[in-house]
């Protein structure tokens, strides 16, 4: 706590603060934000993520400009006479795939799938994890034993076998992939939140709230939850890339997005037979996946450092 005070002085006032706001204390969020803004890695990562998001959003525009639909096969212009993918050219900027489709357009559409799967699955997982972890940690006792064991069970599940089994029954789809990813991710968040809740609920300010007559719900969400936001936000930014890779894995194995809809995972799967003759086919979706996950991971690290500049780690990786 005192460190925050000194931090205030150290940081000074980056943007000239009018004296009218001088009494407005800077929240821990504002302090973290100020630190984050000075972190070059964080800024670079944010730029990369925004660019990828833009590419995903304007994917139809890219398709329009290139003049190629994502699933249209250009059998005569897009393939060599031997029927192999064509390399980068003025017509296909990063080449074509084994069916004569434009890899650039497909990667752009794949970004939609990846970001959607990553953000939605991670958000659902974090929401469930927070509610379960908070409930388990706050109430303790039998509730805690039950929920903690449930988390252990989920964490102990062999996710690939489970995914294969479920997909073979229900049939692959993006929605199912997201559900599976969320199901296997919430328990990790739940554990972290539970642990934090266990320590926060012993704080005197929680006792103070209780002595004021606050209800359990109020204590959980007004007094405890704000103290969990930082680790939860960090977890969210680290879960998104994990979920993106998770989705790519499922699609790679044919358990996620169904062809011909492009996703980075199923593009990689299709490209594997051609990597000797068509390096662009494997490289472009691969690099897209790598850059995206790297940017999210580094941003997550930066956010964690911004919230906790003293290096006291909220969790180990």
């Amino acid at each position: 706590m005192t460190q925050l005070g000194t931090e205030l002085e150290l940081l000074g006032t980056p943007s000239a603060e009018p004296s009218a706001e001088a009494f407005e204390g800077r929240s821990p969020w504002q302090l973290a934000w100020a630190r984050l803004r000075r972190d070059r890695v964080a800024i670079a990562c944010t730029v990369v993520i925004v660019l990828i998001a833009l590419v995903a959003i304007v994917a139809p525009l890219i398709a329009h400009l290139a003049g190629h639909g994502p699933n249209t096969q250009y059998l005569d212009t897009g393939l060599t006479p031997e029927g192999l993918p064509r390399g980068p050219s003025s017509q296909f900027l990063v080449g074509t795939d084994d069916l004569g489709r434009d890899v650039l357009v497909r990667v752009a559409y794949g970004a939609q799938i990846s970001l959607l799967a990553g953000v939605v699955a991670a958000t659902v997982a974090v929401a469930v994890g927070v509610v379960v972890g908070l409930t388990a940690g706050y109430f303790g006792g039998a509730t805690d034993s039950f929920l903690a064991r449930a988390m252990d069970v989920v964490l102990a599940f062999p996710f690939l076998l489970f995914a294969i089994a479920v997909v073979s029954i229900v049939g692959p789809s993006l929605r199912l992939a997201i559900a599976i990813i969320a199901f296997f991710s919430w328990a990790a968040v739940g554990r972290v939140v539970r642990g934090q809740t266990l320590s926060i609920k012993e704080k005197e300010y929680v006792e103070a709230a209780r002595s004021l007559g606050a209800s359990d719900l109020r204590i959980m969400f007004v007094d405890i939850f704000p103290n969990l936001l930082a680790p939860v936000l960090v977890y969210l930014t680290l879960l998104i890339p994990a979920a993106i890779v998770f989705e790519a894995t499922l699609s790679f194995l044919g358990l996620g997005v169904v062809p011909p809809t492009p996703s980075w995972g199923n593009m990689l799967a299709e490209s594997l037979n051609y990597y000797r003759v068509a390096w662009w086919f494997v490289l472009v979706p691969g690099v897209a996946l790598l850059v995206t996950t790297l940017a999210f991971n580094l941003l997550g690290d930066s956010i964690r450092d911004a919230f906790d500049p003293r290096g006291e780690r909220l969790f180990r990786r």
Partner: protein
Amino acid sequence: MSATGASPGTAGHDGDVLVRVEDLVKRFPVASDRLFGRARQEVQAVDGVSLDVRRGETLGLVGETGCGKSTLARCITRLYNLTSGRVTFDGDDISALSRRRLRPYRLQMQMIFQDPYGALNPRRRVGSIIGDPFAIHGIAAGVERKRRVQELMELVGLNPEHYNRFPAEFSGGQRQRIGVARALALHPKLIVCDEPVSALDVSIQAQIVNLLADLQDELGLTYVFIAHDLSVVRHVSDRIAVMYLGKVVEIAPTDELFSRPRHPYTNALLSAIPAIDEEGGAGPGRIVLGGDVPSPIDPPPGCRFHPRCPKARQLCSDEEPILERKAGDLPGHAAACHYPVEAGEELGSPPAPGVVS
């Protein structure tokens, strides 16, 4: 602080009594080796305490760390459920009320906590923290709440313009003032101060103690004041209860306790006050107790103090003394000891020449 007339005995004069504690017991289960065997042990944090808190007085509660002072305080405010016994607040038995039914009483009794750093949520603005009681009980909202919060801040000596600051931006003493403001928000009758100054700098302690005293005069508050610093307790309290290992061993009006301590433990405590030579005479020799405080899981039989007591005899380990008025004491002075200390008696080592008790 305004002393209400010394009413005799710990009980009696019901109209004066704000809080009555009767035979209060609080035990905490200790998890020990659950895998093998079922040695279920319990810490007897508070074991059969009875006392009254009179309206408008300050009752000091002293004792070593771990003697059960804080647990007793949390039982009185019902932050803990009692194992057995009764707590009566303003004539109503609150010892078994559910959380929901306790809510109206929460308006009337508040706590001030020891750690001004821990008692304030670091993620919330001070205005919102002090406004919490209003929010929880749906009393004032919006502009009205802000106005009342700023009034409270002024009352405890904080700058109302600091409404939007975070706890981290205040010093320890200021934070304790924030805690006091929060406790005062609902105009409680009783404030339980759990070592409110022991985490503060000595120069700040006096400020907070005086603030509490002023507020008591102004608002007619009743305090239960817990501390291990005897000089602070002496300054603020009308009466003092001394606790040892979950029991009250002596209770008396402040001056009486300091001038005529009857329990050997009280004597030892008082002798531990570092004395600056004020009245020219040498104080009583320091009584050094041997050994450690026994484990509250397995307290000694009979008088709990007997293993460390310089006056202990056979009876002390056989039979538990009851808290009662001893011969020659003023009314309102009670001690739990078979062989109370007499005036002029010298306890323990080393006897100093020319001792005035």
